[in-house]
């Protein structure tokens, strides 16, 4: 726009995948972004498409059509929907700030609802696994400095976390590992992914058989004999060789993704992976870092845990926190048809949840707080447009490894569009003034 002076903001933190890349340079004026440098392709797309597909006005469904309305009316309708409901679900949270999530917990307690975040369909099983097996982990810099063995299992960082290998693993430079040749990369997956193409060893495992392979590795690592010739499609000699590499390295790092959490076994797979790493610590130094996918899913777990004691799937309907995934988790509660209203913040469950859950979700009133048009916003009763964290609003986020960062505002949001934290605060105030009794 003519007359607006342009500037370059440095050390900008990207809010997409949770790698927390914080060396971005964004050229912008007060309202628009010209260019983004240093980020990966997804990051550049995120910054330069910031204005595309935006919801620009609050919307309320009247006579079956979503129509623009005032902010006050949208807040009022949202508050009424949530306070009337007996079993409201407050879902999403992984793509917004900790400050907003904190408001979400407060609102869930106020209306007596279920608060769950995208962990429930992502690394929830990892958390369930660590609740049994613990976790030997570290911040990403430790891997960069020290790791001579890197394993990617059931994840494809070239596609999901494009700068992971350059910032933290095989292409990174650390105090004690300065070159690629000082590290070995093993990739375990069902396909020869683009990440596997970079590996020193690629191990193709049969789908749904990771548990057996992990257990076989644990057996070998603990010095016991394997009896079968091949496990999960992997020959015994290969398993034994992999076990030797793991035991003999100086500092090993296992990164695993949804290939473990989403397949048969789920949390048992995660538990097996976590147990394997724990066992390896008897022989050498080994760490595990699950590949979290959204820029603040870790933050959603952290805030939920320090405020309620539990990381996701928290039921506050009884006036105190209860946790029982499978029962108090979003997909289950929806599929059972018990939820009678939903608040969705920065997420698109209509697109991503299984059909049985979506079928019910589409029958109940949905309040969506979201920057961009999605199938969930299109199916809602109330839609309130929100500012994008790390671009149009400042907020605290947590990286994959639990390092907290302040993702700062770079440009103004479109006129009338507010940060999530403000919107949720307004819903809380309106709900209180309506006199919710629980």
């Amino acid at each position: 726009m003519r007359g607006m002076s342009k500037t370059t903001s440095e050390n900008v933190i990207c809010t997409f995948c949770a790698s927390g890349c914080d060396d971005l340079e964004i050229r912008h004026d007060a309202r628009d972004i010209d260019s983004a440098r240093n980020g990966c392709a997804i990051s550049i797309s995120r910054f330069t498409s910031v204005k595309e597909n935006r919801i620009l006005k609050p919307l309320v469904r009247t006579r079956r059509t979503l129509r623009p309305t005032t902010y006050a009316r949208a807040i009022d309708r949202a508050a009424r929907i949530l306070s009337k409901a007996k079993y409201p679900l407050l879902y999403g949270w992984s793509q917004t700030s900790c400050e907003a999530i904190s408001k979400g917990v407060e609102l869930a307690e106020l209306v007596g609802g279920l608060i769950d975040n995208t962990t429930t369909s992502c690394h929830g099983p990892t958390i369930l696994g660590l609740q049994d097996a613990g976790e030997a982990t570290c911040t990403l810099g430790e891997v960069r400095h020290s790791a001579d063995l890197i394993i990617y299992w059931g994840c494809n960082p070239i596609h999901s976390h494009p700068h992971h290998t350059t910032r933290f693993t095989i292409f990174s430079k650390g105090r004690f590992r300065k070159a690629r040749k000082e590290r070995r990369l093993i990739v375990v997956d069902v396909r020869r992914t683009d990440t596997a193409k970079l590996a020193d060893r690629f191990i193709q495992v049969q789908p749904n058989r990771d548990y057996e392979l992990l257990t076989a590795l644990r057996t070998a690592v603990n010095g016991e004999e394997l009896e079968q010739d091949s496990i999960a499609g992997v020959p015994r000699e290969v398993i034994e060789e992999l076990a030797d590499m793991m035991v003999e390295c100086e500092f090993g790092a296992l990164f695993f993704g949804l290939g473990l959490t989403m397949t048969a076994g789920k949390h048992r797979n995660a538990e097996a992976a976590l147990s394997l790493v724990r066992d390896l610590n008897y022989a050498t130094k080994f760490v595990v870092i699950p590949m979290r996918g959204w820029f603040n899913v870790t933050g959603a777990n952290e805030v939920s845990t320090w405020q309620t004691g539990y990381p996701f799937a928290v039921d506050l309907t009884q006036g105190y926190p209860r946790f029982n995934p499978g029962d108090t988790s979003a997909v289950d509660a929806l599929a059972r048809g018990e939820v009678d209203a939903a608040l969705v913040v920065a997420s698109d469950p209509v697109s991503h949840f299984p059909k049985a859950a979506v079928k019910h979700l589409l029958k109940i009133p949905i309040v969506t707080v979201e920057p961009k048009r999605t199938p969930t916003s299109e199916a809602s009763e109330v839609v309130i447009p929100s500012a994008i964290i790390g671009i149009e609003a400042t907020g605290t986020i947590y990286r994959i490894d639990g390092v907290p960062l302040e993702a700062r505002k770079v440009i103004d949001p479109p006129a009338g569009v507010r940060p999530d934290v403000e919107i949720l605060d307004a819903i809380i105030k309106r709900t209180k003034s309506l006199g919710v009794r629980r």
Partner: protein
Amino acid sequence: MSRIEVTVISGRSLSQAQSRERGKFSDEYARSVAVCELDPDDMNELGAMEGENVRVTTGFGQVIVRAAVSKQAPHRRIAFVPYGAWASMLFDASTHTSGMPTLKGLKAIIERAPEAKVATLQEITNMKAE
């Protein structure tokens, strides 16, 4: 033959992530997620052409998507459908008490369906309501 049995996995892809940022109602997004990546040998066995539509059916639903030759092969009998509204037509809502639905490792049948159309995002949502 015009049908094969596979295991379906879903996940992120670069193009899915990039196009998602631009907007879920864009053609670009639909092109990057309403797709099923197959091992080249599986494509041959199915007899499908690159870009031709196929029907993917699991025990929980079915969807028409475009077939594409995978650049991350070999993976015989594994089909990759990126995260998105189309993939989720196939998922198992049962979480086996973990809270986690099954989004990977689903048994599926893929059939050639060159005359069928890929649904739009709105049509997909409507189908989920049925």
